Structure formats: structure tokens, C-alpha cells
């Protein structure tokens, strides 16, 4: 069996007495597209923040391409090819869409400390190509702060692709979008992932999106992985059904 791209072993994180992430372990194969689902408060975003280096875990290990990355700074993790998007869109509001991607491209190519060359002529074509790939070519010169919500989600995706990542972590990539847009964005994400042979781990609340795109599904509940498998297996798993249907107190 080939070495997995990502191996997570016993990752924990507690906030006071609450165990937000409670011994999560799993492996991601190269090229896999996996959904991480679970009710609100299951620990999904916390887990993502740990993987991306923005939150320090209490314990556990995360090996990426055979290298331990738990505890590295966010920028160091990104440099190794792990890219992410945020549940609440995170872009550079006063920068144009193009500049948003350029910043990431300049960082990826180690030129973010250049003092004298003008940005206008650096990484423009690559960045425009990325914007075109997510369908934002028309908006390239507009400030991110004025873009529509759906466009911001696309912009985040373009930014996340700027370092040619091997692993893409998408935290609710379609949250807050209209249902029709959601399907389109996830179909786009799926096709980009397959074309670039990316490994994708994404969280999502819309089950239609999950079952349309994910090859495997993993369910997180109270900080633990309670089920993992092909979408249909997970869908019929009685414990998963109990979590989603039988515990109204968990719903928001």
C-alpha cells in the first residue's frame, strides 16, 4: 500500500473542559476527495485550524508526506503544499482580486520581500489564469471588498491554488451561497482537483454537495470520528443517523 499523503494520529484539543477535538486519527490517500461532516460544534473548524497551524493541538501527530507538521507555523505549513480556505471568507479587502492572487503567487515564488520591482508586472499572467480558472477573470481589477459573496468564495479558491498545493483544506466552501451556486462551485472544485491531482479534505453542511463530490465521507461528532467510508455506507450508518436526526439538542 502506498504511503498516504496525510496521516493524522490521535489529535486532541480542549478548550477549558470541552474536548473540541478528541483523538482524531485517519489517513488521506493521494488524490482523494473526502468530506468531513458533522453537526455544528462537532470540532470541524477547530480540527482544520490545527491542521493549518493556526491552533496549537494538545497532543497527537500529523505527518504530511512523511514529515511531522503539527506545531509548525501556518506559513511554514503552506510552504509545504497545504493550502486552505476559511468558513467565513478571508480575502484582502483593499486589494484587487488580481492582487489577492498575486500576493499568494509572490509568496509561493519567494519574492514577497522584493522592494523595487513593480507588482504590476509580476505574476500577472499566472494569477489571471487562476482567476479565469475559477471564473473570475471579469472581476480581476475590482477590490475584493466590493465583490459579491459567491465571488469571494471563488477568489479564496484561486488564492488557495496559488502555491500549487498537494493538499487542499476547504472549510465549508459553499457556506452562505445560493443552492444553485453551491453545486456549480463544488463541481468546479472537483474538476480542478481531478485535473491537478489534488487531495481535498472539505467540511460541508449541504449533504447534496457532499454526496455529489466526495469519494469518501468522514463523520465527526463531539470531537471524535464516528464513521468513515463510501458516501452510501456512511449515509445508512445508524450511529450517523442518530447524530443527525436523533439529537435535536445538537442542532442550531
Amino acid at each position, binding site marked *: 500500500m502506498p504511503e498516504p499523503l496525510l496521516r493524522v494520529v490521535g489529535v486532541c484539543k480542549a478548550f477549558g473542559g470541552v474536548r473540541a477535538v478528541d483523538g482524531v486519527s485517519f489517513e488521506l490517500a493521494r488524490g482523494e476527495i473526502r468530506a468531513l461532516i458533522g453537526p455544528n460544534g462537532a470540532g470541524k473548524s477547530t480540527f482544520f485550524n490545527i491542521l493549518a497551524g493556526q491552533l496549537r493541538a494538545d497532543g497527537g501527530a500529523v505527518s504530511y508526506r512523511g514529515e511531522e507538521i503539527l506545531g509548525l507555523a501556518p*506559513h511554514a505549513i503552506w510552504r509545504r503544499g497545504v493550502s486552505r480556505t476559511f468558513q467565513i471568507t478571508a480575502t*484582502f479587502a483593499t486589494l484587487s482580486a488580481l492582487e489577492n492572487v498575486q500576493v499568494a503567487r509572490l509568496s509561493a515564488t519567494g519574492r514577497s520581500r522584493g522592494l523595487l520591482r513593480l507588482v504590476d508586472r509580476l505574476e500577472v499572467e499566472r494569477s489571471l489564469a487562476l482567476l479565469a480558472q475559477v471564473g473570475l477573470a471579469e472581476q480581476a481589477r475590482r477590490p475584493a471588498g466590493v465583490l459579491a459573496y459567491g465571488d469571494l468564495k471563488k477568489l479564496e479558491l484561486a488564492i488557495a491554488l496559488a502555491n500549487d498545493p498537494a493538499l487542499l483544506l476547504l472549510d465549508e466552501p459553499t457556506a452562505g451561497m445560493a443552492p444553485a451556486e453551491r453545486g456549480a462551485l463544488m463541481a468546479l472544485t472537483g474538476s480542478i482537483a481531478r485535473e491537478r491531482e489534488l487531495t481535498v479534505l472539505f467540511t460541508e453542511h449541504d449533504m447534496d454537495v457532499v454526496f455529489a463530490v466526495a469519494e469518501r465521507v468522514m463523520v465527526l461528532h463531539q470531537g471524535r470520528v464516528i464513521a468513515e467510508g463510501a458516501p452510501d455506507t456512511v449515509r445508512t450508518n445508524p450511529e450517523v443517523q442518530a447524530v443527525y436526526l436523533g439529537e435535536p439538542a445538537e442542532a442550531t
Partner: protein
Amino acid sequence: MSPSLVLIQLLSGLAHAMVLFLIASGLSLIFGVTRIVNFAHGSFYMLAAYLTYTLAATLPLGAAAFYVAVLLAAASVGLTGLGVEVTLLRRVYRAPELYQLLLTFALVLVVADLVKLCWGSENLTGPAAPGLAGSVAIAGQLFPTYDLALIALGPLVAAGLWWLFYRTRWGVVIRAATQDREMVAVLGVDQARLFTSVFALGSFLAGLGGALQVPRQALTNVMDASIITEAFVVVVVGGMGSLPGALLAAVLIGVIDAFGVLVLPRASLVMTFVVMAVVLIVRPWGLLGGPPAPQRTAAAAVVTAGAVRLPRRWVAAVLAVLIAAPPLLPTFHVWVLVEILAFALFAASLQLLMGTGGMVSFGHAATFGLGAYGAALLVTWTKAPMLLAFAAAPLAAAAGAALYGYFCVRLSSIYFAMLTLAFAQIAFAIVHQWYDVTGGDNGLLGIWPAAWLAGPLAYYYLALAACGGGVALLARIGRAPFGLTLRAARDHARRAETVGINIRLHQWLAFVVAGFFGGLAGGAFVFLKGSVFPNLLAVPMSVEPLVMVLLGGVQAPAGAAVGAAIYKLLDTVATKYTEYWQLVLGAVLILLVLVFPRGVLGVLGDRRA
């Protein structure tokens, strides 16, 4: 030191601490809720002191007159604060937050001259507090009864404030707003009324502090400046928005002040700043403060628009005038132009930190002063040729900035600003006290340019090349990958670190670059004046470039340069024609802020877009 002396100093420190606590808790309250860095807080304190002086003398109430005067003065200052909030500050709440700082700075100037107009510039000695006039013997030493009363009053006021904040609905709203005001607004609290009431209460506390100070010290025209920095120190050492923190810090700073004078008289100036620097390095949010709620709106604090790019025609036209005009001008005007050039570069270097990097420094004077002293010390002690010393100025400042920047970039918002101020004050204290090397108060004299550069025109063109070139380079850096990366980190730190940006490293480099150009400006200035004095590193020298950047527009170095030109011209004209130049300057600044609430270039840029 005898035990009884220690006890007396301790008590005297505590008495001062109580006054400090009153003022600082008002300042902390205002900043916590409204995010206004209220420079005018010290002015309100001073105003109340003078009002008390007059009221106590005129009210026909006998022994009660003083106490009624204290309350009346504090109340009038509270009302003044209310008026200022409603008529001025409210108009600029939609502008980037720092524009309110510019307004409060203008108020400082206006109040200072109003006080001078009404009460003159002689020191005044206030009345003693009836019934508390004498001294009591404590451990064989005499101690003022009034100070003892203050020590007793302090905890009472603290308890009253605690009751207000923790036991009333209004207090709950204030505490909630301090932690997360966006959330409070969403919950349906009327922001306008909350801000007004908080500003009034904060001003009242400043007024009470000032009024109570009257029997303890002579009233002077500069008591606003001395208290405001100390109050800010207390606020950040205690932790923003923390009442117990303010009390703890006031006691700490008050006592350190009292003992500092005894133990290390030469270092007493700087002791509180050293303490603040140490506290902030160890605890980035003060002793009892916590990290602030994450801001949801990107970069609301400083910049709301992208970089402005001036049309090439404008730049070419300005440059043409700067090259062609000086030979036609009287010498005095050429010297004024050189000074403007130096300040344009100084302000532009701050713009890199403030506008592009979103890091508001209250201590940028350090770069200017390090550059100026670097050059002056080389000339004085090694007889270095002028051009070599000139070239050393930016390097000295960059080295200094690299050193203190290392600590500063670990903090954010007001804590960051205050740490930069602390380092500037420490640098000030060093040049002020190290007589053998820096000449202390006497400064260093005879730092003139080489003979062939000494004429007004020759030196003007050197300054134009150095400062104009510096501003141009800063503009270029703003549009280079480094500038773009800084703007990205300013807009959204979490996003920036997840596109591989090492934010602290970039911010630290910004410090070094800003230090370099600030030092170059200092170098140009020192050979213009032929001398250097410690006041180049003092607080006003840090505030001036801040005002210039805000005045011109924070988005681009050109804005800073325009702001520098406007400010320096106003200053030059006003000081020439009237003794009350601060009043004129302050009034004009207020008008400018109201007309250009995002800076002159910021507003013009918006119009063009």
C-alpha cells in the same frame, strides 16, 4: 534610605496613583468603547484644574467653595466632553478610526491656547483644601493631610466605578462593548448614545482628576502633556478596559515614580517607560487585559481604500516647481522648504508603517532622532566628513529600528503604539541624560554641511535629492511585492499567514525600512539646523508625523508628503503672525478633518475614482 522615608515616599506615590487612576480609568473607558485615542484627555484634566482654581476663588461659599468647585469643574469638563463628542467626533465616526485621533490632537492645541488666553502662562498656585490643609506626622516625618485624604478617596472612587460597571445595566453594556462592540451594536444598543455617555463620563473622570490635583501642584500650561503620556502608560500597563488593571497599574506607576526620583534621579524620566516596555514584552495585553475580539471588518482601523496612485502629470509638475522655484525665492523660504522636505520624508516613512503596514507608531521620533544624533555624534567625535555622517544617519536609525522593532512587532493595536512610544522615550532619556557623549540638554552644536553644500541653494538641492528621492523610493516600495504583502497582512492577518507570509518578519522589515528613511530625514534636518537637541526624540516629534500622515492621507507616501507640507506651512505662518498659533493651527486642523475625513489625498482620490 531610612524606613520612615520609604514609608513617606510610598504614601506620596499612592496619593499620586489615585489621581492617575481617575484619569486613566476615564481614558481606558473611552478607548475601550469608542476606540478613540483621546489625546485631549490631558487637556480636559488641565482645564478642570484651572476651572477649580477660579471657581474656588470666586464662589461665595466659604470653606465649602473648594469642594463645590471641584465638583462643578469636573461636571463642566464632563459636559465639554459631551459637547465635543456630539459636535465634532460624531462627524468622523465613519472615517478610518485614526481620524478621531487627529481631531483630539487639534483639540489639545486649541485648549492649550485657550487656557493660556484665560489664565496666562505664569504658574498658578491653587488653594489648599479647607480642613485638609496641614500635615500630619507619620513615623516622625511630616506628610500632607490632603494626600492622605486622596489615598482614602481612591478606593472609594474605584468601588463606585466598580458598582457602575458591574451592577448597572449601563455598565454591563459598556463592558460588553469594550470586549466586542460590533456584537453590542447588533444586539440593538444605540451606539450614538452609548458613545456620547461614555465620552462624557470619561471626560468627567479626567476633570475630577485635574480638580483634585489643584492643592497638590502648581498649575502650568504644560500639565496636559505631562499627564496624558502617563495616563496612557497606566492604561496599557493595566490592560485596556480593565478597571482593576488600571488601579493596579496606577499604583505601580505612582510608586515607581515616587521612588525613582529618590533612587535614580537621572533615570526617573524613563523609569515608567522601561516598566511599560517590560510589562508589554512579557504580557502583550497588559497586566490584567486580554486579547481583543477579532475585528470582523478588514483593516477598519487605519485604511479603508487601496493605494492611491497620483497621475504622473501631477508628480512631474510638483517636481518641476521644486527644482525651478527655489532660486527665485528669498533665503528664508528656501530654508522652510528644506524643512518641509525633511518632514515630508519623515512622514512618508511613517506612512509605510501606518498606512501600508497598518502599524500605528507613537514613537517614530526615535528614527528621526537616531538619524540626527547618529550624524551629529560622528561629526562631533570623529570629525567625520559631512557626507559620510549624512550617509550614516539612515543606517544608525535603521539599526535602532531593527532592535526595537523586534519587540514591537509582537504586539498589536494600542499596545504596539505604546511600546514604540516607550522605546522612543528610552532613546530620549539616553540622549537627554548622557551628558558626556550627547551633551544632554545642551545638545550638539556646529553640525554644518561641507563648505560647498553650505549655501541655501546647494543644501536645498542636496535635501531635495535625498528626501525627494526617499519619498519616491518609498512610493516604489509601496507598489512593490513587499508593499503589497504588507497591505495583505494588514487587511487579513490569518489569510496572509495561510498564503505563506511570515507576518512578523515582514513587519519587522517594514520597521527597518521606515527607520532607514526616518533617519535619512533626521540627517537632512540636522545639517539644516547645524545642531541637535534631545527634543528631536520627544513625544511631539512622534505626534507631528502622525498628524501629517492623517492630514494628507494614509494610503500613499505622497499623502504624507502633502500633509507635511500643509502642516509645516500652517505652523510657519501661524507662529509668525500670532502668539496663539496653537489655537489657529488647531482650528484649521479641525476644519480640515471635517472637510477631508480621510485625508486630503484620500478624499481627492475617492473623488477621482
